[in-house]
């Protein structure tokens, strides 16, 4: 018991929570934006992988870190445009198209990586984002170590969550996006073009997903490994449901999952002898399923989610 309290009292745990949560926040916001406009984007896993690769590659080639993040976002927009073309213009199944994008983007990023980067014993490294020193705050006892030791993209992710919440619920554009996800015919009868809204949401959302992936190579770690996204995209799809399609709750959900993850890592080191470590690895996922079961039962799904919109057809 005292071991567990020690873990909870360590600043390192809380610093890790924010770090682990950051890619999840980016990608969950991206998935949420797509779904609010009525498009499920299962391309997320592949888009994150590609973003991680291309962002890293840009920096490895001499671009600065922010440019790397930007390049990743651009690549996400391209895959988003592909997914939108398949699901919005052609009205194909969003599941199938999304999984196709994931398979394609994951393999393609590995392929490009092999093609562009010479094979060496250890993967090449870049110098990642460094913790941002915030005057006064970072020097606070405990809090300074626990909270204010993050890199700039983490703060960007949190600001983006607030910005997305504001956009969706306080601006005419956000209302148009939500209406498109609920009833595109109603949106159209009020002079909004649901096709344009869906394209925009999928492209912007996919850019966020790719930025989440790029955080892994540009901040959390310093090199690219093809399998490094490790199902984070699928976690984000579940987090969107957990969050009932609300950005604020998505932020909270990502932090909660990251807490479980950071906690189990530390638990392994103190209790690892007694139990197989795979059990600890399961903890965040099991707890996520439980949280999902409790939270998502009353969630209100966007009514037009996964329904292709065809003009003039009801």
């Amino acid at each position, binding site marked *: 018991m005292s071991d567990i309290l020690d873990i909870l009292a360590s600043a390192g745990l809380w610093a890790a929570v924010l770090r682990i949560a950051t890619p999840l926040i980016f990608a969950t916001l991206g998935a949420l934006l797509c779904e609010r406009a009525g498009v499920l984007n299962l391309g997320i896993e592949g888009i994150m992988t590609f973003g991680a690769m291309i962002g890293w590659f840009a920096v490895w080639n001499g671009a600065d870190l922010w440019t790397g993040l930007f390049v990743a976002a651009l690549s996400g927009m391209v895959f988003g445009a592909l997914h939108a073309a398949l699901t919005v213009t052609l009205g194909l199944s969003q599941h199938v198209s999304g999984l196709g994008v994931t398979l394609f983007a994951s393999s393609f990023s590995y392929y490009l990586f092999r093609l562009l980067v010479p094979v060496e014993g250890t993967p090449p490294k870049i110098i990642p984002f460094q913790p941002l020193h915030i005057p006064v705050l970072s020097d606070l006892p405990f809090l300074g170590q626990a909270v204010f030791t993050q890199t700039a993209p983490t703060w960007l992710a949190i600001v983006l969550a607030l910005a997305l919440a504001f956009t969706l619920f306080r601006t005419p554009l956000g209302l148009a996006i939500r*209406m498109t996800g609920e009833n595109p015919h109603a949106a159209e009868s*009020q002079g*909004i073009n649901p096709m344009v809204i869906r394209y925009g949401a999928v492209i912007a959302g996919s850019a966020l997903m790719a930025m989440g992936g790029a955080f892994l190579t540009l901040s959390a770690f310093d090199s690219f490994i093809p399998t490094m996204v490790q199902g984070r995209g699928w976690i984000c799809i579940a987090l969107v449901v957990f969050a009932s399609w609300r950005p604020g709750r998505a932020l909270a959900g990502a932090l909660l999952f990251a807490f479980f993850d950071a906690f189990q890592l530390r638990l392994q080191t103190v209790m690892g002898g007694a139990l197989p470590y795979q059990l600890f690895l399961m903890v965040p996922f099991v707890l996520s399923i439980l949280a999902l079961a409790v939270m998502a039962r009353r969630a209100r799904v966007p009514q037009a989610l996964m329904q292709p919109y065809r003009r003039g057809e009801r």
Partner: protein
Amino acid sequence: MSETVLDISQVSKRFGATLANDTISLSLERGEIIALLGENGAGKTTLMSMLFGHYTPDSGHISVMGRVLPPGRPKAAIRAGIGMVHQHFSLAPNLSVLENVMTGTESLWRPWSDRAKGRARLMEISARFGLKVSPDARLGDLSVGEQQRVEILKALYNDAKILVLDEPTAVLTNVEAEHMFGNLKDMARQGLSIIFISHKLDEVMATADRIVVLRGGRVVAERRAVETSKAELAGLMVGREVKRPLREPATPGAVVLEAKAVTLREGGVERLKAVDFHLRAGEVLGIIGVSGNGQAALARLTGGLARRSAGEITLFGQPVGDLSVREVVGAGIGRIPEDRNHDGVIGEMAIWENGVLERLPEFTRGGLVDRKAGMEFARRIIEGFDVRGGTPASRIRLLSGGNMQKLILGRNLIEHPKILIAAQPARGLDEGAVAAVHERILAARRAGTAVLLISEDLDEVMALADRIQAITGGRLSPPVRPEGINARQLGLMMAGEWGAAEHAV
């Protein structure tokens, strides 16, 4: 002083081989209510879709307040002051009333939405026209009547001067419909011009100033409401004399279905409270009442979809306890559900599949569905019951309401059931289809079928039923004969005043 706000001039529209609108002209004045009357397929909706810019006319033009409307542009129509209330609402159930109304009314690039202003404007319009709503309610929590009010408010919020309503009462209960028409008259008095599409003679006569009758894509007549009659309009609309069939006297046979003090409790609510009724072979028992008083529960109970909480059900003289759907079908009980699109058919499946679904074991050979026999069965229904607009293999969604209902009737009646449970069988159908459905029900009665007719249409029950019971708050009145009672007394019975039922039989 009259002032023309809308002028539709010589408009035609062709879809493939059919001329949906043939040189139609129509004008509307300020403060006037016009009814566009016609059967399904007469071209009413096509005409209104062109007015709203969903379709482009092949020839002719439309002008609003003296200005020609650019064709095929919904936005231009909205800006010109035309508001459309569709039959299927264009609303989002998960958004609030205010959000539904405000969508698309501000520039999309405004940095924030001025909700306070939107709310004030909505409340002002709501007060001016007496259309009460609470702006923060979630739309999906509202009743259908309230949702329609939101649709109307949405149009008014967009500064509509001309309101077009496509079959506004198709989804409303009678009470809601009366309320809505009251509102429309108020709005017309305040200078709004209104066009509503309908095929119901009663509401057209009661509400419209002027009635334009469409048939086969042409305007066949225009009458002032004060100068015409229901009979004349019915003739004009159908193009021939339509007579609803009348029940001839008959002697009912043995009691086939009897309920004694049956109570049905669902989710803690008593939907049926100790109801008694019996049904004889070769008679129609009408259950009249305002919807929402237990009719749905009664239909579910007799159709095998609900379990009684207390009381006794007897089928052909034998106590049966609770019925399952399979037992109900096996016992020869046919069912016509109240909501045919939701409970009656599966829209995306073929007509033949819908035909055989509830008797699948009969159409199974060696564990496989006998497609050929199913198609043949569907063909027999289509021929025998005059179902138009589809082949056995076409999706049932493509049939009109009337033809879909004929198919459901045929599926039940073709095997001569002993009992038919018909819930609102003619709801939403046009005059010709209503007559056809009534004719079929009476034919079944002649053939010895016992019919339980659940309806909120007084005329229908008076015309078809041998005995009538009113349902209010889950309780059934004693039965009365239609001969000894008038519509007013029946209305009182529906309101729970059972004094009129003293001539109980």
